[in-house]
């Protein structure tokens, strides 16, 4: 469909980022090859171009990195909090200075629009380091007793949907509290973590305090099961989260898990419809829907269902899908061929089960991994697309008549990470927010994040909170 508004291309320059042809693992302050010499390639999801080749960590590398972190822990944890704070402030500042470079890099490696990396990811990454920097010398005041102690070595495994932001969520509180870390980024998005290693170098961070191991699931498993790891932090799928929970059973490893979600976005009939439609779009199409707290179940009151759906389809038809480096792009590429296959399979299941599919009319680029913004109507609570996390730009629409029915349907999920409420009535917001079994509730807004604000789920969305004062607890011996 020809859009009413034609835009000239507005590409961000890639010249601000210099990607080396190959990278090693970052252990004890040095880049090093994997012990067995293995490497893998990372590609740009929007073009399938090979960006670089990175070392693939194995169990021996995990062991080496944990040893380095253990050695560094002694001095790092003994530093006055005020000194640790200054390192974190330095890192925050360097991130700000290099944020354009990092935003372009993240967009290249992840496939998400530059608009999002530039305006959402990078500012939040810097903000997280600033926020936790300030905690480092104030831990006595955090409410966990006087002089709370760090745990030791933190093994951290993060996903590919917000590579650098998830790194910040994990590393900032760990370092502020005096722990040292071994972090494994996802195999499809290893680059920004390696650039972060360079930021650690620029900041003069002591060797071994931060170690980065690029690799696959086997490296992650070796890391979380390593006997000398004191704290495990994982963000990713519920299935892997359960496996980790089993693997740490009977140990004294402290664990936080940020897992899947199937967020309900509830639109009442008195909601400001235009704002709600924007919120629905942000809720499920931000980062191509590859967000654990995405509002992937739209619960709309029956009396306004047609109006909302019409407005929503109209809005989706104006979203611009394509080159993630173009500043006008709203929808970028799906992160990998595997993820695209998963989304496609779930959408086919939805159709086979009788839900009605509608996709925004848009042309998909010929190379790369793409999926048009899609919604399902005629969905019941029993449908797979209403129950399983799709982790893609796919919205399932259900309706309700009463607030109680909305709450019951919203809570009818194994997950409990996020929810949205759209209504002009304040008492309804508070009453419904009270009854929702979800860790984050956005009222008349959606997908907002801030380092001061704890984030995490109920039920099978995992346990523990990241961000805010609550986020400290996961890294302290309390």
């Amino acid at each position: 469909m020809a859009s009413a508004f034609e835009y000239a291309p507005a590409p961000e320059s890639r010249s601000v980022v210099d990607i080396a042809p190959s990278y090693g693992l970052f252990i004890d302050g040095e880049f090093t090859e994997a012990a067995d010499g293995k490497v893998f390639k990372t590609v740009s999801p929007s073009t399938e171009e090979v960006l670089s080749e990175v070392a693939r960590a194995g169990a021996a590398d995990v062991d080496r990195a944990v040893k380095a972190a253990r050695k560094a822990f002694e001095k790092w944890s003994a530093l006055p909090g005020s000194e640790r704070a200054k390192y974190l402030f330095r890192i925050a500042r360097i991130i700000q200075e290099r944020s354009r470079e990092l935003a372009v890099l993240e967009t290249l490696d992840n496939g998400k629009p530059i608009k999002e990396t530039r305006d959402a990811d990078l500012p939040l990454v810097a903000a997280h380091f600033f926020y936790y920097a300030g905690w480092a010398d104030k831990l006595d005041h955090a409410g966990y007793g006087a002089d709370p102690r760090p745990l030791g070595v933190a093994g951290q495994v993060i996903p590919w949907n917000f590579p650098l932001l998830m790194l910040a969520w994990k590393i900032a509180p760990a370092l502020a509290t005096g722990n040292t870390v071994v972090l494994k980024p996802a195999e499809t998005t290893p680059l920004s973590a390696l650039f972060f290693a360079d930021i650690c170098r620029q900041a003069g961070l002591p060797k071994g305090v931060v170690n980065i191991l690029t690799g696959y699931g086997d490296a992650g498993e070796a890391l979380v099961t390593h006997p000398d790891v004191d704290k495990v932090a994982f963000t990713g799928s519920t299935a892997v989260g359960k496996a980790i929970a089993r693997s740490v059973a009977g140990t004294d490893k402290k664990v936080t898990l940020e897992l899947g979600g199937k967020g309900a976005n509830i639109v009442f009939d008195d909601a400001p419809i235009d704002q709600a439609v924007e919120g629905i779009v942000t809720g499920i199409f931000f980062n191509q829907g590859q967000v654990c707290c995405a509002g992937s179940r739209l619960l709309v009151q029956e009396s306004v269902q047609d109006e909302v759906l019409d407005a929503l389809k109209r809005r989706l038809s104006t979203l611009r899908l394509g080159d993630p480096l173009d500043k006008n792009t709203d929808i970028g590429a799906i992160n990998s061929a595997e993820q695209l296959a998963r989304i496609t399979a779930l959408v086919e299941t939805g159709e086979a089960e009788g839900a009605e599919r509608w996709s925004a009319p848009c042309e998909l680029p010929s190379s790369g991994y793409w999926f048009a913004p899609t919604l399902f109507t005629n969905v019941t609570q029993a449908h797979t697309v209403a129950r399983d996390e799709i982790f893609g730009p796919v919205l399932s629409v259900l309706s309700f008549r009463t607030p109680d029915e909305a709450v019951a349907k919203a809570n009818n999920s194994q997950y409990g990470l996020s929810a949205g409420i759209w209504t002009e009535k304040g008492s309804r917001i508070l009453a419904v927010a009270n009854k929702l079994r979800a860790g984050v509730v956005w009222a008349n807004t959606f997908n907002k994040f801030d380092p001061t604000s704890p984030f995490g789920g109920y039920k099978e969305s995992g346990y523990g909170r990241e961000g805010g004062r609550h986020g400290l607890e996961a890294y302290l011996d309390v």
Partner: protein
Amino acid sequence: MSEQNRLGVFKTYKLYVGGKFPRSESGRVYEVTDSKGQWLANVPQSSRKDARDAVVAARKAFGGWSGATAYNRGQVLYRVAEMLEGRKEQFVREVAAAEGLSKSKAAAVVDAAIDRWVWYAGWTDKIGQISGGANPVAGPFFNLSTPEPTGVVTVLAPQKSSLLGLVSVIAPVIATGNTAVVIASADAPLPALSLGEVLATSDVPGGVVNILSGATAELAAPLAAHQDVNAIDLTGAGPELAKELEIAAADNLKRVLRPRPAEADGSDASTDWLAAPGTHRLTAFLETKTVWHPTGALGASGSSY
């Protein structure tokens, strides 16, 4: 008739489930003796079915109990202390027999157990202020984090501290609005079963606390695997059992409170239940809910409220 010639009336000990006092559906009982091996009573040996029934009762009670005001929950917990105070003699006798304590030592333990209810009664309307609060986010939003109960909690009571330890693990779970399925100390369940009678007469709604006696491992296994249990407190489990149960609990990602090192060898007598408890047992079974709302603040965007 003089006291010496009078034949005592034994008590038939029963479970406490859903506010009622059933026998085990299995019809099984086992013999409980005092610390010297003297017969005290036959108590129900609960089955897996009893455990599942207790979860149903606890789930049913959860909505009302978690929805009650914190002030109300505090009153109810304080009422438990009042009722326990009135029955002190009985508990001193039972604790002395169960733990082989002198009468005066047992009396001190019972006093401490009563005081613990009072302590937790005072926490119900404070924990939200201590563990929640406003988050100063960088944007035009009102953003509040509040703690909420996680749901139905399975509690493996300490094996040695039959009353004080028991109260120390139950009270924090229900103070925060959760409901509990409690597996009493296997060898010393009498104070626990009698506590059920106290709870039944003290305004605690039926189903909020459910008490089972029997073999800890046998009862804990189905509860750790139960899809409608939200959390498990493993205090009363030895290291092997605790590990096994934690693995089972991962299936629906239950919140797990592991035994502390002092408890982990099963010799929880080494745990100082008399010491000040701290808040970790309160916060272990809380979720943090963060609610965002636009403030419509007049900011750079020039938007108005």
